[in-house]
């Protein structure tokens, strides 16, 4: 699993930093700078702000490295600093502002007359292996994430992109674990629906004659 390989790599880098290993410094900076940039870019939508957040976070990390008691927890620890740097920097997000998503709006169309709920969804059994379609799915996924309301986006970024636990995500965002779970589910449903519409309608595929 890429997430766990990544995590082990990070823990080794953190141990290397604590031990004063000079090679660990540049590798740590390169690795986390890209991660923090991605988080803050998807949060605030401003490239310049995202680069500044990455630099301010890394400065905070090095200044406070003595506070990291367990190198195994380096990722949530860095993201807590990144989240605060992002809040400090934040102009209003250029993406979707905060609002609540209700569960009902994602309930698929159901027809219970046949004994089962007949759920209207696309055929997900074979996701496109065509490179053009894969690239469209990738773009669509990015758009779906950016279009999530601002209070749902950090939850999916930390839980599903950074693969942090519910407990760590809750601590980083100052939310209860129940709120993290609720927002994660709704954010996933919102993204799923956009991908489902794409697979069902193939609207973008039409432009390439692939539908």
């Amino acid at each position: 699993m890429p997430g766990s390989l990544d995590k082990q790599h990070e823990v080794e880098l953190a141990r290397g930093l604590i031990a004063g290993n000079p090679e660990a410094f540049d590798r740590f900076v390169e690795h986390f700078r890209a991660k923090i940039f991605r988080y803050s870019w998807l949060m605030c939508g401003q490239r310049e702000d995202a680069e500044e957040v990455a630099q301010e976070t890394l400065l905070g990390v090095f200044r406070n490295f003595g506070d990291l008691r367990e190198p195994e927890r380096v990722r949530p620890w860095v993201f807590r600093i990144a989240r605060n740097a992002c809040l400090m920097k934040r102009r209003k997000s250029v993406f979707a502002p905060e609002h609540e998503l209700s569960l009902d709006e994602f309930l698929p169309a159901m027809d219970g007359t046949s004994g089962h709920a007949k759920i209207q969804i696309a055929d997900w059994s074979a996701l496109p292996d065509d490179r053009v379609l894969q690239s469209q799915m990738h773009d669509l996924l990015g758009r779906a994430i950016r279009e999530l309301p601002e209070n749902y986006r950090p939850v999916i970024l930390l839980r599903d992109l950074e693969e942090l636990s519910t407990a760590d995500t809750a601590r980083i965002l100052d939310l209860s674990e129940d709120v993290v779970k609720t927002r994660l589910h709704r954010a996933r449903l919102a993204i799923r629906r956009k991908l489902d519409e794409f697979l069902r309608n193939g609207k973008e595929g039409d432009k390439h004659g692939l539908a």
Partner: protein
Amino acid sequence: MDSHERTERCKEIFSMLSDYLNLELPPDACSEIESHLAGCPPCIEFADSLRKTVELCHGYRPDDLPDPISRQAREELLEAYRKMLVARRA
């Protein structure tokens, strides 16, 4: 179970699917979901599409990358790192 009850059960399952996929439900609730899924192909299909959504998110890497770090920014970080090491050894 009549069709209305079954549809209501589908809605309950729908609200718990992320917790189920995250393995964050108690064993009893997992068993209930699995026994419903075993008899409800549309719910299996929906759960599968949600699982694939999560997998796509796990692998998502935006095309935008930061510019290479400037020499000045690297020096600033290196200085903070060196000071941290000195403080740790003191």
